[in-house]
């Protein structure tokens, strides 16, 4: 009796596992074929096919960029696919790039998790004819065709100072809240603000520059300390979205509310409540959607051969207008966007 496989415990277990696995695979196989029916058309080399590969899926910032990339791809008559890992990891992105290269997509709009770890995969993809345009986070220049940047550092610095001047006038004490003292972009923006203030608003004095390490609690505490230390402070510029939200939270609960102006770089969802309660009148950010949009137009121009991604190349990008490629194949979307009570509801990221 024991020799019959189905009556032995192990035999039953094996059969059960086999059945379960078989069922799992039937389901998986179906998903595969279904998705493939739509995917196979995008793999054609004639029509424009653009794949959007963010650092990770399900992030509002990248979802916003995806909208722009999709809008442009549709406007250009191409097919659009969005793929990507669930966590921001370079090795996960490599697998996706390899797959896209094998599918021979026309171009990849990529926000890279690592500047060099993707190099080998990107090189293989480009040898197979796929155009690679990075946005938001670049890879080393030799691994991609072009990089779409948000806005020049100068224009971001200028926009932040202009927003504060619009609220407090062109004189008085102000403070700057940065992310960290050794981040390249932070130093560029803070340095840019100091230069811009020195040459245009001589009566505006930056009396304090402090750093919250992009930590909510630390930014909150340091804002409180700076306001106590400098009682004549008329305004604060936070050049980081974490800092802006933390400083706004402190000011909105303190006696400084309505007396100290606050602006800087923020994200709409994190700052919406403070725009509504009046703590923050306006803030600055670049549009992820416009980056995705411009990157898709760049891929189209690269595929048509109108540009090669070298400095001085000119191409036109639909509703955004005309662009000229800068040094190292970098192109900037343009001036940053100003968010205030009138337009903040249009954004969700």
């Amino acid at each position, binding site marked *: 009796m024991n020799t019959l496989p189905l009556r032995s415990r192990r035999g039953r*277990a094996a*059969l059960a596992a086999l059945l379960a696995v078989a069922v799992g695979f039937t389901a*998986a196989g179906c*998903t595969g074929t279904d998705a493939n029916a739509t995917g196979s058309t995008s793999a054609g080399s004639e029509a424009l096919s653009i794949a959007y590969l963010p650092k990770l899926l399900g992030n509002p910032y990248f979802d916003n960029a995806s909208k722009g990339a999709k809008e442009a791809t549709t406007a250009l008559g191409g097919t659009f696919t969005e793929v990507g890992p669930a966590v921001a*990891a370079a090795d996960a992105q490599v697998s996706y790039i*390899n797959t896209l290269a094998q599918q021979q997509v026309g171009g990849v709009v990529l926000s890279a998790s690592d500047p060099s770890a993707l190099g080998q995969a990107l090189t293989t993809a480009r040898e197979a004819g796929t155009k690679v345009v990075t946005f938001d986070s670049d890879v080393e220049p030799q691994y991609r065709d072009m990089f779409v940047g948000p806005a020049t550092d100068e224009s971001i610095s200028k926009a932040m100072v202009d927003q504060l001047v619009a609220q407090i006038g062109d004189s008085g004490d102000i403070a700057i809240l940065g992310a960290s003292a050794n981040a390249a972009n932070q130093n560029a923006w803070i340095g840019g603000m100091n230069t811009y203030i020195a040459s245009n608003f001589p009566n505006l004095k930056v009396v304090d520059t402090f750093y919250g390490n992009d930590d909510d609690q630390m930014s909150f505490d340091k804002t409180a300390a700076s306001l106590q230390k400098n009682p004549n402070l008329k305004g604060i510029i936070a050049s980081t979205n974490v800092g802006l939200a933390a400083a706004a939270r402190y000011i909105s609960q303190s006696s400084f509310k309505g007396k100290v102006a606050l602006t800087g770089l923020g994200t709409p969802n994190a700052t919406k409540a403070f725009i509504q309660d009046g703590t923050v009148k306006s803030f600055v950010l670049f549009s992820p959607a416009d980056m995705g949009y411009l990157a898709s137009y760049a891929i189209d121009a690269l595929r048509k051969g109108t540009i090669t991604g070298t400095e001085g190349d000119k191409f036109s990008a639909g509703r955004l207008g005309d662009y000229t490629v800068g040094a190292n194949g970098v192109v900037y979307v343009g001036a940053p966007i100003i968010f205030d009570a009138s337009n903040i509801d249009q954004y969700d990221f």
Partner: protein
Amino acid sequence: MTETDTLVAPVTRESRKYAAYGSPLWQRVLLTREFAVIIAVIIVAIVACSSIPKFATPLTLSYLLLDLTPVLLIALPMTLILISGEIDLSVASTVGISNVVLGFLYAGGVPIELAMVICLAVGLFVGALNGFLVTVVGLPSLAVTIGTLALFRGIAVGILGTTSITTFPAFYKSLANANFPRTGIPLVMVLVAALVIVFALLLHFTPFGRGIFATGRAREVARFSGVRVKRTKFILFLLSGLLASLAGIYYTFRYGSSRGDNAVGLELTVIAAVLLGGVSIFGGRGALHGVIAGVVLIGLLQSALRFSNVTSDVINIVTGALLMASVVAPTVFAWLKSRLFSRFFPSPHATRKVRLQ
């Protein structure tokens, strides 16, 4: 020689023949969890190759094997550890620390070969620390390795901060990515195959390997049967640290990048694959061919779904559901069997109970 010796000896010396097992050899080989997973791999491969355009190329195989190499390397000692009834969650952090140390030393001017040896030494140290805490101090491995997972990851991130090191010798980088000419089989598979053979021999054909199974089945029984339980477990943690650091070295050259957050979460991929391959989370059961099939199955499935532009969330759902099904199904069927069969085919044990009443 006494009279009792001659009487007892023929009985104990009689070697066990195949006929003594409950079922013939072919049934014991084919009707197993391991073989079910192997069949599943074949089914998925056939379905994927026939239904997904451009999937059936040597390049797909090459990428699949390259992606799976770190998982395979870590899965080998992980199988042994799980069979012995323990777990090592710190492996991905060990990969991370090895990855970071290699980059840090090479950037600091240490010759790459020496840096690789130091990485392996770090792996052994990491394994020794885990092993010490589990066997000598006597703490549960789950708690110990959750702690060292955080500790080693913290050290890895601390060494490099937010920077990354990206210059490595081109020779090793191409070695880690190269294939045998005109095939899709990466060169690194030679190393993997050699280690698979070593671990298969160790687990299935040595007294040490039987000791691992015995330890996982019943710790005390194993100890009284002469298995050096603590030493066995200590060696397994050493092997785990060593192989994880080897995977870290491979990872570094494969991606040409050394940074603190590399390979985060890899331990879950490995454990999922090992469990899918038929190793019991309670210890005492499992086989290496099933584990390799489990690793390949998860990799193949992910590759096929990715090729079909299925989003990563759906891929996670499919692999998760598969794992659940493979872990839960045997238990459910055993329960069903006990409920149904005991009604229709009462076991001798049950009959005896009735008679006693």
